[in-house]
């Protein structure tokens, strides 16, 4: 009765094989990550100190710290966030909850996905032409942040739309059937159950923004300013551009300094990801179905 047939045994063997292959691929994926982070930590850690984090570079960038770049990156990210999140979330709400399912909507959705694939250097040139020159913002935090915002907008929209669409359609229909309008349904049922996904998606995208160099290179980042930015129309240093600069343009920069900057940059990104994951876990706990 309860003995395995040859077919059972073959299925079992195949399943073990599949599992082994997938595990191997995961290892292949993890190794480079560990190598990169390991190298950065080993070579960059000696450079890290309070002084490194909280002073400006000196001696033609060959010594001193990274404080203005750190502050500049925060400025850029926050202003980009303020521009892209409201627009992106609103557009995603429209596309997912209101727009009729027709050719136009599907074309727009496709265009947005394609926009997410446009290389960042193209966004950089667009930002330079549109914000720096045409809108006369000059090279400034504002122009750079708006360029970053345009670049992240498609991803914010896609991430938001995916979270919205993870809310079962049956919930919406149950609300509509009681006479709730679309907006009442969004406010009372759809958003409360998708907000965790939206927020984590947005944070992940923003952390990507922090690492971008090309879009800010022509639009607002500068190799060196001794003072901190005071408003959105100032130029600023930024971590990513600083790293690019000391690694390729400046001369006689000690290796540990370069790795130190890279380490801090990656730490910022990983920290944001950690916050986003923590957030997701917390909000998962509150999820209602």
């Amino acid at each position, binding site marked *: 009765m309860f003995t395995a047939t040859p077919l059972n045994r073959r299925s079992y063997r195949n399943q073990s094989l599949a599992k082994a292959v997938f595990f191997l691929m995961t290892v292949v994926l993890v190794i480079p990550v560990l190598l990169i982070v390991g190298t950065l930590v080993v070579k960059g850690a000696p450079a890290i100190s309070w002084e490194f984090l909280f002073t400006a570079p000196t001696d033609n960038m060959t010594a001193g710290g990274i404080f203005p770049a750190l502050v500049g990156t925060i400025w850029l990210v926050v202003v980009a966030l303020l521009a892209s999140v409201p627009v992106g979330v609103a557009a995603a709400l429209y596309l997912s909850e209101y727009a009729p399912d027709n050719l136009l909507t599907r074309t727009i959705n496709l265009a947005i996905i394609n926009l997410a694939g446009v290389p960042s250097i193209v966004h950089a040139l667009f930002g330079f032409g549109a914000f720096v020159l045409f809108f006369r913002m000059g090279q400034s935090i504002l122009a750079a942040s708006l360029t970053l915002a345009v670049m992240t907008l498609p991803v914010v929209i896609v991430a938001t739309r995916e979270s919205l669409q993870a809310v079962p359609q049956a919930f919406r229909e149950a609300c509509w*059937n009681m006479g709730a309008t679309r907006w009442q349904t969004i406010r009372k049922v759809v958003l409360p159950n998708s907000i965790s996904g939206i927020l984590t998606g947005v944070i992940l995208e923003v952390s990507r923004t922090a690492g971008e160099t090309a879009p800010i290179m022509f639009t607002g980042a500068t190799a060196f300013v001794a003072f901190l930015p005071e408003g959105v129309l100032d130029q600023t240093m930024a971590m990513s551009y600083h790293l690019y600069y000391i690694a390729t343009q400046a001369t006689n920069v000690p290796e540990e300094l370069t790795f130190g900057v890279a380490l801090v940059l990656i730490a910022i990104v990983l920290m944001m990801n950690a916050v986003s994951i923590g957030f997701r876990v917390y909000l998962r706990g509150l999820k209602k179905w």
Partner: protein
Amino acid sequence: MVEVAGETAVVNGVPGPAYDEPPIIEVRDLSIAYRGKPALSDVTLDIHRHEIFGIIGPANSGKTSFLRALNRMDAFNTAMEVSGSIRINGKNINDWRNEYALRSRIGVVFPLPVGLPLTVYENVAFSPRLRGIRKRAELDEVVERCLTRAALWDEVKDRLDSLGSLLSGGQQQRLTIARALSQEPELLLLDEFSIAVDPVTTMRIEDVLKELRSELTIVLVTNLVQQARRLADRTAFFLMGELVEIGATEDLFEGDVKDKRTTGYIEGRFG
């Protein structure tokens, strides 16, 4: 054009259907298709105020589609195409520019219960809140009344703050009944409302429905022909997207039919 079954009778102190008044629902040449594939064709019927109107028929005969059309649910599904006319209270339902107002007057219960991801209390208070009821005492009162009518109050009165989706299947189904009642609807559309509910509780809900008839009109789709017999004043028999016949329920069940297929279905010879 539709037969009127008997005079306005008083049954157990509850006034019967108002056959002498203009009908609350007038359906004319209603056809429904999904992406061009017909699900229901050329249905013409009237439903009267304070009537329990039963709809029976085998699977796939278009019963659910009919209810969906009454609530304008074709707006939720681009595949669903409705033609012909449906008038409720004398007004074509497509002439309601504010379709939300229309739906708020119609309570619906579908066979697969959907507990909203809210507490039991908030599930039932949802619609009253939409109507602008804010006072806690007033909401409490509505919630208790509706849950009691749906024969659920005793089971959930100590866990009103737990999630509706954590209730058992049958409880969730009664929750959706309570939710539909909380709309204080003029029209209640029930689609196999007792599919997951045990027989004893089903009887309690059926008793409530009989009482509710004095306040509203009920369209009852059911796979249990005996349930139609117990509840419905008149019953329609749908078959393969076609309305075979409508008659006073007792007549149909006693074999006084115009089409032999009706008796065949009622007696379980096919379906």
